Structures are given as structure tokens and as C-alpha cells.
């Protein structure tokens, strides 16, 4: 059976094409303003990468913040359930998920692939990709370089502000105090790692944790998170598509 999953996320839209148990193609693209247009575009490109036509697809399912805008999908599933399915497909022994997305972060506790409990932070940019994006800007480093830079620090600065906007001004005042870029970067990474680790502990994540979302690609942040959570985190080969993958699997 050929199935497709669309994850219409707040920052990026993802599409996955699945043929039985094999990933045939996928596409990740910035969402922009229009959820429907973004989802149509990634779907088309994912089909192209799979060498398939939309008529070959027997089922399309949507998830993500803009899931209801994906008009060509007959049904939707919540992001939490979708990530759980996707992660369980890739790591059957997973007992927890940490997802740091562009505008939210979530932690999910799993038992035999089922969601037992979860926590979401989506009311505040603290602990999300947005936090890194803003603060990296104040440091004048590309967001992808923030984690690597942090790894070079010997004496991380202390960032006490939880608010993204105020953290940005805190960065500026740390620069005025002549802290090195590395130390400020390390402070920022530590701040987000601590924030997410608190959520993980509250829900009861202990071991066999999978880290997903765009931020998972950042080695420095992964290392900081592992230290704070106190266990190794595994990252899928493409950590941004587990939601779309779960959507494709949902009605199978």
C-alpha cells in the first residue's frame, strides 16, 4: 500500500511517501504564510522524489499546526500521536520522544508505542527553535553554527531570562561585558537544554529517548540536552519527518 503523510508545521512543512514499510520519498520546505500551498508543494515534490503520481497514493493523512488547512487529506491526527507512530516505526524500543520544533517543543512518554503522557510548550518561545533563531541573530552566528560554537566554550555564560525577547537583550549586555561568543552560545544552548529537560523529567522520560525536530540536527544542542536529561539521545536519519511519517502510518 502506498500512503502519504503531510506535517503542516508552523515553521516547516514536510511530506512523506511510504510504500508498505519502505520510505519512497520525502520533502521538507519552509511553510510560509499559506499552509495549503506549502503542503501541496511538498506533496508534489515528495511524489517526484518517489517517482510516483498522486493517483498511485491510496491514502493521505495530515498532521501539524496547519493540519486542517490540508484540504486534500481526508483526515487528520494530532502531532503528538503522529510523532509517536513515526518514532515507534523507526525505533520500536523507544520509550520517550523529545521534539524541539520551530515554534513549540513537546515531550512524549511512550509505552509499547502508545502515548502514555505528554507535555507541550507552545505558548512561549522559550525552549523552541525560535529561541535559538532570535538569540543566534544577536550573536551574529548562523543558527546551524550555534551548537558547534557552544561546544568550544570552557566557561558558559549564565542566561537567566526565559523570555526570548529578553534573552536577546541579555545576549547584548553579555557582549558588552566582553564575554566570548563561544561562552554566550554555550549559555544559550544550556538554557534551552535545561528548559526542555525539566519538561522531560516532569513527564517521566528516562531512557530510550529519541530526539526529533529541526533542532535535533544540531550536535551542540543534542550534547547539552543529553547532559541535562542524563541519558543518550538517539536521532533519526532525518529528525524532521517523524510527524509526517506517523501521519502516513496512522490509518494503515
Amino acid at each position, binding site marked *: 500500500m502506498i500512503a502519504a503523510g503531510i506535517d503542516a508545521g508552523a515553521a516547516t512543512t514536510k511530506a512523506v511517501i511510504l510504500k508498505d514499510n519502505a520510505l519512497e520519498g520525502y520533502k521538507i520546505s519552509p511553510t510560509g504564510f499559506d499552509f495549503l500551498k506549502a503542503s501541496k508543494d511538498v506533496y508534489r515534490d515528495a511524489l517526484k522524489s518517489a517517482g510516483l503520481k498522486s493517483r498511485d497514493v491510496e491514502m493521505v493523512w495530515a498532521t501539524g*499546526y496547519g493540519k486542517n488547512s490540508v484540504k486534500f487529506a481526508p483526515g487528520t*491526527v*494530532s*502531532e*503528538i*500521536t503522529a510523532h509517536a507512530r513515526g518514532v515507534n516505526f523507526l525505533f520500536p524500543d523507544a520509550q520517550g520522544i523529545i521534539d524541539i520544533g520551530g515554534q513549540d517543543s513537546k515531550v512524549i512518554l511512550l509505552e509499547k508505542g*502508545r*502515548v*502514555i*503522557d*505528554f507535555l*507541550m510548550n*507552545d*505558548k512561549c518561545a522559550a525552549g523552541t527553535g525560535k529561541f535559538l533563531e532570535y538569540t543566534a541573530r544577536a550573536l551574529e552566528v548562523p543558527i546551524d553554527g550555534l551548537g558547534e560554537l557552544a561546544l568550544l566554550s570552557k566557561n558558559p555564560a549564565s542566561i537567566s531570562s526565559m523570555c526570548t525577547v529578553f534573552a536577546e537583550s541579555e545576549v547584548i549586555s553579555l557582549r558588552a561585558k566582553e564575554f566570548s561568543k563561544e561562552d554566550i552560545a554555550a549559555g544559550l544552548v544550556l538554557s534551552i537544554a535545561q528548559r526542555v529537560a525539566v519538561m522531560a523529567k516532569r513527564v517521566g522520560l528516562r531512557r530510550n529517548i529519541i530526539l526529533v525536530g529541526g533542532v535535533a540536527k544540531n550536535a551542540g544542542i543534542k550534547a547539552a540536552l543529553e547532559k541535562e536529561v542524563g541519558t543518550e539521545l538517539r536521532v533519526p536519519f532525518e529528525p524532521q519527518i517523524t510527524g509526517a511519517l506517523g501521519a502516513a502510518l496512522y490509518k494503515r
Partner: protein
Amino acid sequence: MTCELKSLKRLNGAYEERIGQLVRNRKKGKKVVGTFCLYVPDEIIFAAGVDRIILCGGRNDTIPAAEEYLPRNVCPLVKSSFGAVVSKDCEGSCACPHFALVDMIVAEATCDAKKKMYELLGEHVPTYVLDLPQKPDSPEALQYFKGELEKFKETMERLTGNRITDVRLRKEIKRSNETRRLFMRLYELRRTDPPPIKGSDVLKILQKQFFLSPDKLQKTLRKVCDEAEGIKTSSGHGPRIMLSGCPMAGGNTKVPDIIEARGGTIVAEESCTGTRSFENLADEDKGPMAALAERYIKIPCACMTPNDRRVDSIIEMAGQFRVDGVVYYTLQSCHGYNIERYKVQQVLRKAGIPMLAIETDYSDSDVEQIGIRVDAFLEMLQ
């Protein structure tokens, strides 16, 4: 699927009707008090020949006016209630006239935000504060509370010039108990699977229980129970959800609306707009003031310590109503209920009952985000 009951149409126009009734009766010399809390015994008010309406604010639009006086990070119920008093532009707002209707506010020493708000309120409307012992489980606390109720009784007597006799108190206890029994009968019906009445419809009645006259409330409850008892429900419904936590004052149906729109079936509310308002009867055979003190001091509010009675009742209700999951609902900055969440979560975990915590205010800004959590929670329960 449960549809709206015909008997609920009785509540259409009930608001205007009640305001009219209070205005007319006040012209004739009847006193009206405004209340904010379950701890204030209706029986003492009515026994003095006084009428009452509840003044808890559930509307978002009165909050900006309140924020000129109160800090932003205060509970929305407190801000909304206070805003209704100080709103300069009363026209078109149906919250404001309530305060113009009352001769006195009967407040109570529950949470800090309310206590301090009442001090400010007193500058606008005469305000009496009923004190509450904060450790309610000791004999001394009961004794103290009895004394406070006596003082409250005297206050009502002074307000009206009427004497509150035991005979009148007994009559009012019987009447309030009858209302409580009717609510119990309504809740009994919700134990069936699926229940014959929607949670949001029950909430409509609960939110008006201290607003309507007792007679109107009882008549409505009887009709609703009669109709609901005759309904044969069919299967095909979402997970059974119990709401537990902060009150949902009139005008605030945000979270229950989201839960039902996403396919959840609300079967019980452990809340001031829920079982806390009617769960214990007052003893009709005892001395009436002692009976009232004993009944009211048992209300398990999160401003009390310890408050194990509440945790126990959540577990008991989860069994009685066969709930699949609990939505722990709190208002922002409500420290009591927000902190008590931890205890409730632990006990529910032990019992194998999933819980979703939602902390929110009266604005619409987070409706979609709450919706995502509710979707995921309902999927988790299926």
C-alpha cells in the same frame, strides 16, 4: 449522540427575567446581596428574607478595566469580577448591572487574590468578608467557623431588620438540600454510557445555580431530569472525560467547548461549578447553625490545607462516572489549584487514569493550542 434538551430552553430569557425580578423586589424594599463563593451559605441569606446573585466574572471583556487597578498576573476570574465593577463604560455590558443591584457584597477569605480584591471592591460597594479557617479538619476550626457564621447571620439581620429564626433556617436548609438532591439526580444520569445530557448543557445550569431564584432553579432541574431520564442514548461517542479544578464562572465555557468540539464526552465536573457545590447535604435534624457549619466547612477548596478530601473525591468520582481521562483545568495564577495538580496527578497515575493539565485564561489566544492537546489526549484514550 446527545442533543440539546427541550427543557433547557427554559433558561432562554431567564437572565433578563431574573434581573427584572430583582429590580422589582428591590423597589419593594427587598435587600439583595452579591456572592462569589460556595462557602457563603445561601440558607442564612434567604432566612433573612434577602435575595442573592453570584457575581463571579467569566467574561474576558471586563478584564482590561480591572488591569488599571490589579496586576496583570492575577487570576482572570478575580480580574473579570472586579472589572465588571469599575468598568466606566457599562453600556452594552451585562456584567455591570449586577453590582448596581446589590446592597452588599458577601465576600469570603479564600484565596489571596480574592481577599485583596475585596479590599478594593469595598471602596465601590459595601463589602462584608466571611472569614474561613484555613485548616478545616480540626474541632477548633469548626468552632471558629460556627462563630463566623453567627456573625454573618447578625450582619444579615442588621441589613434587613429581620430576625433569623431556627424555624426559618430549617426551612431554608430543606430547600437547599432539595436543590442538592436534584443535582445529585442529574449527575446520577450522567453515569450511563453515553450520558443523556451534554456536559456543556449541565454547565449552563451549574453556572446559573446561584444566579436564578431557588424556585426557578429547582423547576428547571426537575424538568431537565425528567426529560433526560426518558432519553434512550445510543453508543458511538468519544472518551468519557471528567473536568477537575477551577470554577468556570458564567460566560466562561472555553475548555468544555473545546473538549466537546473535538469529540470528548464530559461526564462530570469536580469543580465549584460541579460537584463541590452540591455534594454534601446539611443535616436537617441538628441545630441549624451547627448543621450549616459542618456542611460548608467540608467544601474541598484548594485554598484549604490539607485538602485531601478533594483528592479522595476525584478518585471516587473517576470510578463512579467511569471516566477514561481527567482534564485538570486551572485558571492562570490560581496557585492553589495549580499546585494541587501535582498531588492529583500522582494519585491518578497510581490509579491508571490519564490526566491532561490545561492552564488558561479567558482569552481566545490559546484555543488552537489547547485544541491540539485535547486532540492528542483523546487519541491517547481511544
